[in-house]
């Protein structure tokens, strides 16, 4: 009896020891900063000295802060890249799934941007978008089109960033779709064929519902990622672009916190952004629950 309980206690301790490192990591690097920044959002902290509590004042200021609204709009606008990316990735995946020769090579080609450093990619695209010498405009020139100076024009800077984001993300999405497509049993298509379904009908009634969980995953992760977009604009338009047309929320947070000594205000924005992401994701999970069905 005694030995058994000793053993049990020992195992329990070992068990806790094993989960301790990630747990500590979560506490120190996630939970603590999170609570700290929530607390900071109610203060006028400048990031250096002491904090004093100012209640909801930061949040009230956010309500009338034009630049914050602009940054929020920009961030939402740039999420237009998400559906574009999904459609492109699915088309690519469908193509590759047919077993065209050189599938592996194409997979690698599409995946290379995913593993490239975002900073390096941004610098490269910045050159490509250069109005005078850029690859993009030289290419357009072949068709007699005079391209704009992409990054210096408030109307083209967001599309330019979207194009780059789609290019960067499409390989990853495609790979997920490819895996999903390959797990769809052939027998469904055979049955559909017997019933006289055409290609599109097979896609719409079998493929699309079957890859639904993947689509859901991609949308959720892309929206979260898209809300936090920062590196691209920081490198490509370090002042926030023409008339602040390419500043994202995180970019504005960073400017306030590290450029203007307003860590408290920046924390308030981070909290708003966090709540936004939480709510949007929650809605998606709810919607997904309602619409899901089992295909067995």
């Amino acid at each position, binding site marked *: 009896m005694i030995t058994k309980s000793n053993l049990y206690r020992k195992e329990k301790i070992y068990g806790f020891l094993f989960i301790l490192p990630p747990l500590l990591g979560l506490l120190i690097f*996630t939970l603590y900063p999170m609570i700290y920044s929530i607390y900071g959002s109610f203060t006028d902290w400048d990031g250096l000295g002491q904090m004093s509590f100012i209640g909801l004042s930061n949040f009230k200021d956010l309500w009338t802060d034009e630049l914050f609204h602009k940054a929020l709009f920009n961030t939402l606008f740039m999420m237009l890249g998400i559906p574009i990316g999904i459609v492109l990735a699915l088309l690519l995946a469908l193509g590759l799934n047919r077993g065209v020769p050189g599938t592996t090579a194409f997979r690698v080609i599409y995946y290379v941007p995913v593993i490239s450093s975002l900073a390096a990619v941004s610098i490269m695209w910045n050159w490509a978008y250069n*109005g005078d010498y850029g690859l993009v405009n030289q290419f357009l020139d072949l068709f007699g089109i005079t391209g704009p*100076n992409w990054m210096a024009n*408030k109307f083209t800077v967001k599309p330019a960033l979207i194009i780059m984001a789609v290019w960067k993300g499409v390989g990853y999405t495609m790979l997920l779709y490819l895996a999903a497509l390959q797990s769809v049993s052939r027998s469904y298509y055979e049955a559909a064929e017997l019933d006289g379904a055409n290609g599109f009908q097979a896609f719409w009634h079998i493929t699309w519902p079957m890859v639904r969980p993947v689509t859901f995953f991609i949308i959720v992760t892309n929206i979260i990622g898209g809300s*936090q977009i920062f590196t691209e604009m920081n490198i490509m338009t370090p002042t926030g672009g023409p*008339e602040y047309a390419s500043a994202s929320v995180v970019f504005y947070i960073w400017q306030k916190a590290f*450029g203007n*000594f307003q860590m408290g205000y*920046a924390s308030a924005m981070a909290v708003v952004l966090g709540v936004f992401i939480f709510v949007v994701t929650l809605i998606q999970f709810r919607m997904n629950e309602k619409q899901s069905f089992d295909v067995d």
Partner: protein
Amino acid sequence: MLKKKGWLTSMSLVLAASVVLAGCGGNNNASSNDTAATNAGNTTKKEASSDSKETKNLTFMFRGGTDEQKAYEGVVKQFEADHPNVKVKIIVTAADQYATKLKASITGNSVPDVFYFESGDLKAYVNSGVLLDLTSYIEGNSNINLDNIWKYGVDLYRYDGNMAGQGNIYGMPKDVGPFALGYNKTMFEAAGIPLPDKDKPYTWDEFIKVAKQLTIDKDGDGKLDQFGAGFNVNWALQAFVWSNGADWIDSTKTKVTIDDPKFAEALQFFADMQNKYGITPSTEQAQTLDTYQRWMKGEMAFFPVGPWDMSTYEKLPFDYDLIPYPAGSTGKSATWTGSLGIGASAKTKNPEEAVELINYLTASKEGMDALVKAKVQIPNLVDMATEWAADTTTKPANKEEFLQIVEDYGRVLPGHYTYNAEWYNLFFTDIQPVIDGKVTAAEYVKSEQPKMQKLLDKAIEQEAKSKK
């Protein structure tokens, strides 16, 4: 589908991940700050005796382009050789990441012993006890002759608790960076236009006339291949505004004064260079990088030149020289002089050695010699600078212009005076329609002034709070 519990956890993770952004730890509690600040002032010099044989470790954080990094690393090595008991650990970053990294290290309470900082951040750093007061170390030091260092540069790092520019010294200028106007001498000679006078600035009208003559479509394809000038509004508008007798801020540093008609006139002239006179590439045609490239390819007659570019311009296929900026209604040229300070942490364990390193980098003959040879800056020491400028055999011949800017007509950027430069930056964030000729300068300054004033008021309020 995911179970209830599953998604609750993932939700909270999502929330967690998205809020992490802001506070990176940092618990600068008030009491430790205050004591650090007072200690810094009182530290007696004898305490940290430099003749003890134990090794003292310093960390030195700085930034710069590749040429500059190499030069500074070299000087630090030399310093270590001269001071065998001091070991310096170098932390270096690219320019655009520097501010973030420094501020994160301050928030996280791990400030490097010696580091670069922007003169505009001086007040904030002093008020919250980040910077060591260098006054007692420098004024009593027989190796340093403050009279032989640019007054402009040293004053940038003085602060008496109210106004920057006077009082105790919290940093030494790494260098002073006069932003002069350069011109392509070879191009003038080829066009047969008399060279500009290095002592008498052009009037705006004269400037337009000369620049127009040099704006040419060489191959007749309807596209200009050579421009009179290329000015980036962020860095060149000051020269026009100031020389016209206007400014962004009044002398009390509490009121935004861009709604002055003199200001609007200068801004309109700046925009007209592109839209009315067509002597500068349009924004569509050129951002900074491109005007810089055009200048280096010899396709631009006038272009601003900073001392940090001297090593790059060494290899240009044409001859260039410096002149004063064209003068507005005051008849006098104006431009700004940048600077970066080197300061020490108020919490450094080795203040004596930290100051020694600062002095070596900013005020010693040995240090300056090496840095000037690397062609990344003009000398900090006045006598050395005079000698350097007198040598007209190296490019640019009229290096004297740099010195005149520092001593005579250079000014500090308006954001320096205030707790943060947000109000000033907003001016440039919204300026594009004016430069493109879609909004007149008069309309712009009228609509922009209240917005900037609001941000300035906020900065003033923030400053008052930081002193408590």
